[in-house]
C-alpha cells in the first residue's frame, strides 16, 4: 500500500501533447477517480502511473519514491484493463495465480492465496473454468482478483466497467468499493462515466484536453463546478449566459430574466459575463416566484418518469429548461401546463 503521485507531468505522443503539467495525489488507501471525455489524457495518466509510458517532464512517485526508471513489471501495481485482458489459455486459477508465479511463490502458497482471493471477489470454486466460459461480470471479478492477489502497492482501473451492461455495472460499482475497502488498497480509476466517478471516488480529478480542470471530493466538484466544462460534463446542468448588473446585490441579467441575491465569486466586476449553472434536481416547482434566486415560467414541453424521479423540461424565453422532481409531484403535471420553476441562490452556481 502506498501513496501515488503524479507531480507536474507532461507527456507527448510524437508532436501531440497529451498531458500538460498534470498533478495528482492519491493518499494511501484512498479511491481516486480520474474522469474526462475521450482524448482528455486520462488513459495516458494511468499509463504513466503503470509505467507503460514515460513522462517528458515531471515525476511519477509511488510511496514517495521516484519510479521513473522502473519498468512496469517492477512497480508492483495491480492493473484492471478495460477489456479485462485475461489470459485465454489459462484457467481462472492460472490467471489469478500468474502474478504470484512470477514472484516465485510456492505451489501451496499460490493455491491458498488464489483461493482466498477468488472467495473475496465471490468466485469461489470457479478456479478450473476458462475465461471464455464466464460472464462479463465474472471476468471482471477475475481481472480484479488477479490484480489484487499480488498485494499491489496500488490498484489501477482503466474503464473497468464500461463493457458491462447497466445493471451489472451498478452492482459491480458497489462490489468494487467493498473489495477495495476490504483489501485496503490505494486505487485509481479512470473513466469517462461521470456517474461511476461520482459514486466510486473518495476524490476525483476532472481532466480535459490534457489539463486538470478541477480536483476535489465528488460532492464538492458536482455542486461547485469550477468551469462550464466541468458543470456540463459531470451530470446534467442548465447553463444560462448572463451579465452582472449589480455585484453587491448579486444581480445578474439573463437574456429575458433576472436573478437576484446570487453568491458571486469575490471580485466579480459590474458588467462581467458569467454563466449560471442550475442542476435539474435543484429546481422547485413554485406556485409563484418569490424571494431571491431565479424563477422561470413556461409550459411543460415533455415529461417522463424514470422510477423514483421524473424528468421534464419547460419552454422558456431562454430555451428549454430541464428539471427533475420526485415522482409523487408528477401527478399534478401534464404536458402543456404552465408552471414556474424556482431556484434559490444556494442552488445556483455562478461560473
Amino acid at each position, binding site marked *: 500500500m502506498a501513496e501515488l503521485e503524479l507531480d507536474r507531468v507532461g507527456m507527448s505522443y510524437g508532436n501531440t501533447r497529451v498531458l500538460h503539467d498534470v498533478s495528482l495525489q492519491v493518499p494511501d488507501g484512498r479511491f481516486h477517480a480520474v474522469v474526462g471525455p475521450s482524448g482528455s489524457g486520462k488513459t495516458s495518466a494511468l499509463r504513466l502511473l*503503470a509505467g*507503460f509510458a514515460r513522462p517528458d517532464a515531471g515525476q511519477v512517485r509511488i510511496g514517495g519514491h521516484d519510479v521513473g526508471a522502473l*519498468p*512496469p*513489471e*517492477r*512497480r*508492483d*501495481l*495491480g*492493473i484492471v*484493463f*478495460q*477489456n479485462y*485482458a*485475461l*489470459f*485465454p*489459455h*489459462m*484457467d481462472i486459477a*492460472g490467471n489469478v495465480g*500468474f*502474478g504470484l*508465479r*512470477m*514472484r516465485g511463490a510456492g505451489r501451496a502458497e499460490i493455491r491458498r492465496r488464489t483461493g482466498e482471493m477468488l472467495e473475496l471477489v465471490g468466485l469461489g470454486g470457479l478456479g478450473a473454468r*476458462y475465461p*471464455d466460459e464466464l460472464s462479463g461480470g465474472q471476468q471482471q471479478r477475475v481481472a480484479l482478483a*488477479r*490484480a489484487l492477489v*499480488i498485494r499491489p502497492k496500488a490498484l489501477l482501473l482503466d474503464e473497468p466497467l464500461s463493457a458491462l451492461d447497466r445493471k451489472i455495472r451498478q452492482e459491480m460499482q458497489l462490489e468494487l468499493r467493498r473489495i477495495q475497502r476490504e483489501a485496503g488498497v490505494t486505487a485509481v480509476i479512470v473513466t469517462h462515466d461521470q456517474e461511476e466517478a461520482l459514486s466510486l471516488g473518495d476524490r476525483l480529478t476532472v481532466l480535459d484536453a490534457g489539463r486538470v480542470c478541477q480536483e476535489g471530493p465528488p460532492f464538492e466538484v458536482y455542486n461547485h463546478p469550477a468551469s462550464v466544462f466541468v458543470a456540463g460534463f459531470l451530470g446534467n446542468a442548465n447553463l444560462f449566459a448572463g451579465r452582472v448588473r449589480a455585484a453587491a446585490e448579486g444581480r445578474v441579467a439573463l437574456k429575458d430574466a433576472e436573478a437576484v441575491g446570487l453568491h458571486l465569486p469575490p471580485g466579480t466586476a459590474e458588467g462581467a459575463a458569467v454563466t449560471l449553472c442550475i442542476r435539474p434536481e435543484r429546481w422547485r416547482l413554485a406556485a409563484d416566484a418569490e424571494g431571491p434566486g431565479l424563477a422561470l415560467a413556461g409550459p411543460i414541453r415533455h415529461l417522463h418518469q424514470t422510477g423514483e424521479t421524473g424528468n421534464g423540461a419547460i419552454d422558456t424565453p431562454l430555451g428549454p429548461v430541464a428539471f427533475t422532481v420526485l415522482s409523487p409531484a408528477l401527478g399534478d403535471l401534464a404536458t402543456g401546463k404552465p408552471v414556474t420553476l424556482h431556484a434559490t441562490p444556494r442552488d445556483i452556481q455562478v461560473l
Partner: protein
Amino acid sequence: MIRSRTGGPGVARALRPAEWPRLALMAPATALLIAMVAVPVAMLAWFSLLSGPGVSGAVTGREWAVMLDRPQLYGGLLLRSLALGLGATALCILIAWPTAWALSRHVAPRTRSAILALLIIPHLTSALLLIYAMYVLIAPGGPMMTALAALGLAESRDTILFTRWAVLLMLTYMYLPFMVMALFAAIERIEPTVLDAARSLGASGWARFRHIVLPMTLPGLMTGLVIVFTPAAGSFLEARILGGANGMMFGTLIAEQISRANNQPRAAAMAITLLAVILLLLGVFRLLAMRAFPGAMRRPGAHGSGGWGG
C-alpha cells in the same frame, strides 16, 4: 469451424428445402474426395502387399520383406528425410517467428500487407522455378560462390550444391513464407493489453514470451507444422534437383520406384510408411503441445488456429 447456423428451429423447418438439392450440392465434392483421395490412399495398403510390377500381381508381401531386410537403406533414408523435414521446419520457425512478430508489432499496417504479399507471391509460382533459382544462386562459379570468393571466404568452385545442406536450405526457403503466414495470424490475435497485463503482474520479457506469447501462438505453430513439416518430409523434387546422391530423400526413392524401377508395390509400401510416420509425428507433436499447455490447445480453432489443420 464450420457450423450450420439457422434462424431458429421454426424458421429452419419452414424454409427447409427438399432432400434432393441438398444431396446434389454435396455429392460431387464427396464423390471426388472419396474416389480420388480416400479410396486410393487406403488401397495403397493393398497394393503394397502385391508382387510387382504393376498392381495385378499376387499377394506376397514381398516388398515389405525387402524393405525390412535392408533397414540401413530404407530406415536410414527415412530418418534422413524426417530429419531434413524437421530441420527445415525448425529453421522456418526460428526465422518466421521474429519476422511474424516484427510484422505484427513493429511495422505499419500498410507496409505490413505489402511485405506479406511480397513474401508469398514468388511461392505461388512453380516450386520448380524456386528450386531452379536456388540452383542458379548456389551453383559452383555462380553468383553466391563468386561473391564469397571475392570476400575471400570460399573458393568460387566450392559449393554446397548436391549435398543434404542444399536440400535443407531449399526446404527452408520453400516453406518459410507459409510459416510466417501461420504465425502472423496467430500473433495478430494476441491483444496488446494481455501482454501489458502480464507485464504489470511482474513478467519479464522472457517470461512474457514463455507464458503468454508462446502458448497463445501454439495453435498457429501447430498449423505451421502441418503445412511445413508434412510437405517438407514428403518432398522429392528438392532432393532430386539439388541433393545429388548425398542428399537423397525417401520421397526421391519413392518417385524412382515408379519412374525407373517400375516397382509399383514397393512405391506403395514406401508411400504408406512415409505417410504413417509423418502423421504419427504430427500426432506426437500435438500431444506434447497439449501436455505442455493444456489451456492453449483446449479447443482447436477456438482462439488462434491460423488455418484448417490446427
